[in-house]
C-alpha cells in the first residue's frame, strides 16, 4: 500500500512537527504556517535547483538571460505544457496516468481550426473556437475516464489507445495540413498582454492557482488523494471511486483543451503535430515536482516548479548555443542531480 511511501519520503519531518508542537491547537495554526510547513518545505530542493539554474543562466547569458523579456519568454514557453501538467497532477494523484495528452491537444487544435469552425467563429465570435477546443478535450477525457473507471482498462493501455486514435483522427480531420487561424481576434486576444504580462502566462497562473485550490482546499481534491492513496479505503468511506476517477480524466481533458487554445494562439495554427511528446514532458514535470506516480501525494507548487525547471533549462541551453546532443546528455545529468539535491535537502531539513 502507500504505507511505505509515506515513510520513505518525509516521515521525519512530520514527526518532528508532531513532537515539537503537540499542544499547538489545530485551530491556531494559520493557513500560512500550514502552507509553509507543507508543500513549500518539501519544494525547497526544487527551488534550490531552479535558483542554481538561474545563476548558471546569468553567469553564462548575462544581460540576455536576466532580462524581463527573457523571463517572459520562459514563462510563455512553460505555460502551455504547464497547464497540461496541472491537469496531469490530478490524474497522477488519483493513481492514474495519461499518455494521450499530446494527442488530445493536437485533436483539439485541429477541430477548433477546421474551416467549419472558423467560419462559424467568423460569423459569431472567436470564442466558438475556444468552446470547440474545450468540448473536444473534455470529450476525449470522458472517453478515457469511462474506459478506465467503468471499463476497468489499465490507464496506461486505455490512454495509449487514445494516443493513437486521437492523433489519427486529428490527421484525418486536418488532412495532414497545418490549418492557419484566420480569426485575428482570437490570436490578438490570447497573444496579447495585460499590464505587460502575456495573456498566456496569466492563463497558466490562473489554471495553476485554481488547481492548487481544487487540490488542497476542496473536498474534490481530498477525495482525489484518498483514491490515489488507498482506493479501497476511499470506497469504504462512501466515495464513488469510479465516478470520481472519470472526473479526473475529464478534468485533464479540459486542461488539454485549454492548452490547445494557448498553443493555437502561440503558433496561429491548428495541426495534428501539435503536442508531440507532451505526455513525457508533463509526467516528468509532475514527478520531478514531487507527486508520487503511485498516487496519494501530490503537490501543485512542485509541478509548477518542475515545469519552470525544464523550460529554463532549454532556455539556458539555447542561450549558450549548445548542440542538441550535448543538451540531451546535460539534461539527463541535470535531472539526476536535481533529484539527488532535492533528496539531500529533504533529509537535512529533517534532522
Amino acid at each position, binding site marked *: *500500500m*502507500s*504505507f*511505505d*511511501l*509515506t*515513510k520513505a519520503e518525509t*516521515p521525519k519531518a*512530520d*514527526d518532528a*512537527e*508532531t513532537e515539537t508542537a*503537540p499542544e*499547538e*491547537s*489545530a*485551530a491556531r*495554526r494559520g493557513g500560512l504556517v*500550514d502552507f509553509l510547513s507543507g508543500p513549500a518545505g518539501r519544494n525547497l530542493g526544487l527551488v534550490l535547483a531552479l535558483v542554481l539554474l538561474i545563476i548558471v543562466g546569468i553567469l553564462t547569458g548575462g544581460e540576455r538571460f536576466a532580462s524581463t523579456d527573457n523571463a517572459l519568454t520562459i514563462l510563455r514557453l512553460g505555460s502551455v505544457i504547464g497547464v497540461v501538467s496541472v491537469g496531469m497532477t490530478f490524474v497522477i494523484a488519483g493513481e492514474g496516468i495519461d499518455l494521450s495528452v499530446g494527442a488530445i491537444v493536437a485533436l483539439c487544435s485541429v477541430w477548433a481550426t477546421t474551416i467549419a469552425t472558423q467560419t462559424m467563429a467568423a460569423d459569431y465570435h472567436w470564442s466558438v473556437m475556444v468552446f470547440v477546443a474545450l468540448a473536444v478535450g473534455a470529450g476525449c477525457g470522458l472517453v478515457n475516464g469511462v474506459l478506465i473507471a467503468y471499463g476497468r482498462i489499465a490507464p496506461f493501455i486505455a490512454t495509449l489507445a487514445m494516443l493513437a486514435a486521437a492523433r489519427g483522427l486529428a490527421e484525418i480531420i486536418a488532412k495532414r495540413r497545418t490549418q492557419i487561424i484566420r480569426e485575428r481576434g482570437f490570436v490578438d486576444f490570447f497573444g496579447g498582454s495585460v499590464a505587460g504580462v502575456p495573456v498566456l502566462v496569466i492563463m497558466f497562473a490562473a489554471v495553476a492557482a485554481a488547481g492548487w*485550490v481544487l487540490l488542497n*482546499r*476542496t*473536498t*474534490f481534491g*481530498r*477525495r482525489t*488523494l*484518498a483514491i*490515489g*492513496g*488507498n482506493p*479501497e*479505503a*476511499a*470506497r*469504504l*468511506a*462512501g*466515495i*464513488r471511486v469510479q465516478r470520481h476517477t472519470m472526473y479526473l480524466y475529464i478534468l485533464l481533458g479540459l486542461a488539454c483543451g485549454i492548452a490547445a487554445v494557448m498553443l493555437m494562439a502561440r503558433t496561429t495554427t491548428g495541426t495534428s503535430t501539435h503536442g508531440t511528446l507532451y505526455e513525457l514532458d508533463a509526467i516528468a514535470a509532475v514527478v520531478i515536482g514531487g507527486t508520487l506516480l503511485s498516487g*496519494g*501525494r501530490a503537490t501543485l507548487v512542485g509541478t509548477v516548479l518542475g515545469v519552470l525547471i525544464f523550460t529554463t533549462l532549454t532556455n539556458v541551453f539555447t542561450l549558450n548555443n549548445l548542440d542538441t546532443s550535448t543538451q540531451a546528455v546535460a539534461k539527463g545529468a541535470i535531472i539526476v542531480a536535481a533529484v539527488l539535491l532535492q533528496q539531500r535537502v529533504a533529509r537535512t531539513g529533517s534532522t
Partner: protein
Amino acid sequence: MTDVVKRFPGVVALGGVDLTVEQGEVHCLLGQNGAGKSTLIKVLAGVHRADEGTVEWRGEAVGLPDPQAAMDLGIATMYQELDLVDGLTVAENIFLGHEPSRAGFSQRATARRAAAGLLAELGHPEITPTTEVGALSAAAQQIVSMARALSRDARLIIMDEPSAVLDAGEVEQFFAVIREITARDVAVIYISHRLEEIREIGDRVTVLKDGKTVSTAMDAKTTSTQDLIRLMTGRSIEYVFPRRSPVAGAEPMLRIENLSQKGEFADISFQVRPGEVVGLAGLVGSGRTEIVEAIFGATRATSGTVTVDGRTVRPGSVPAAVAAGIGLCPEERKSQALVLQASLAANISLASLAKFSRAGLLDRHGETRAAEALLDSLDVRPRGAHRESRTLSGGNQQKVVLARWLLRGCKVLLLDEPTRGVDVGARSEIYGLIRELTDQGVAVVVVSSEIPEVLGLSDRVLVIADRTIRHEGPADELDEHAVLDIILKGDAA
C-alpha cells in the same frame, strides 16, 4: 439479518448466518479465524453484496448495494484492516467522504476542530488533527478509525477487532467510550478474540463457525468460557499456556549489549539462552518494535552489538541477521510480512529460497511439499499451498508468517505481537508451537501488548518503559498489576 450467504471463489465464507442486534446493546461476534465474522460485517456495511439472505433495518428489508447506502442508514464501521489513507491528515481521514464543506470547499478549520473534539472525547488529545495518518503508530490509527466511526452519528457501530492493537490501558478508555455511546441507544457489534473483553463489555454473544451461526443471543456475562470455546472450535481447548520446561544453563544464544538507537531507545542489554522465551512487556509506543527491528538489522542501531551463538552480527543488515539465524515475525502482517498476491507456498519459502535452489533453479515440488506439510501442521485454513495469501483470514496469515521461519529453521526467533488477531484455538496452537521450538533449543523473544500473554508465555520478562529496560526478572515472580506498576511508577511497588 437472516440466512445471509456469501460465496467467494472456491470458498463459502458465509453459509446462512442469522444475527439480530437490539438498540443500545453491545453484541459480540465470536468465531475462529476465518469463521466469517469480517465477511458478515462487510455485508452489513455494504462492502460485499450477499448472494442470498435478507437484511432488515428497523423492521424494514433493505438492500445494501454500497458503503454509502449503509452509512446513509446509520451504520458506521471500523474495519479490521486499517482503512485509512496514509497520505491524508487525521482530520481529513476522519471526515473522508462527508467533509464539512461549503460549495465544495472544505472547511478545514471546522474539520480540525471537530476532529480534535472527537479525539479528546476518546481520551487521545495528543493526536494532532493535522498529522499525517501514515506517521502514526497502529494504535493511534485505530483511535482515528474510531473517531471516524463516531463522526458519522451512527445508530449502529461495527467494530472489527478494534482492541487488537491497543494495550490494556487504552482498551479501558475505549470501553468507557463504548459505554457512553450505548447509553445513547446506539448499538454496537463488537468482534474480538479476547474472551475477557467480551465478558467486560458485551451484552449478548453470537458465535459463528465455518460461516454459520452456531448459537446466537447468549448472555455475554454468564455463558461459560468452556462453552464459548467449544461452540467456536467444536472441541474443548484448555485456554492455558503450555508448561515451561526448565532452561538449560547453557551459553546464551542471543546476547544484546548496550543497544541504542537515537531517539528510539537506549542502552538495551539482555541475553536469551537456547530454549528460553524472553518477553518484552510495555505499553504501546514504548519502543519494543524498534528494539526487535534493530536486533534484526531492519533498522540500524546507533551503538551496541548483537551476538548470536557467540558471533557478532553485522549491524544494520537483514541478510546478515538471517544468515546468523535470526528470524522476525513483524508487527504488521500485511504491510511488512506478506506478499499478498503471492501464494502461501511462495510466502513460506521466501526466506529459505536457497534451500529449494538447485543451481538457481527452483525445486517447486519440494517447495510445495514443504509448505503443505507446514500448513497442515499449523492447521491453516482453507487448505491449499497455492492459495493467494490475500484471501486468508488474519489469524491464518499469522500462521503463514510463522511457517516461513519454521521452514528456515532459526536459532533466534523474534515475535512481534504474534497473536494479534488470532483466535483462541490458534492462539494456544501458537503457544504450543513456541514451546516446541524452545524444546529444540531456539531462543525466542516475544513482544506483546497483552501482559497476561507475556507473563504466561515467557520464562523471563523485560519491562520496557520510557524506551529502556525498567525491570528484568523471571515471569512467575510478576503479575499484571506489578508490571503496570513498574511501567507507571518505575518499580514494582
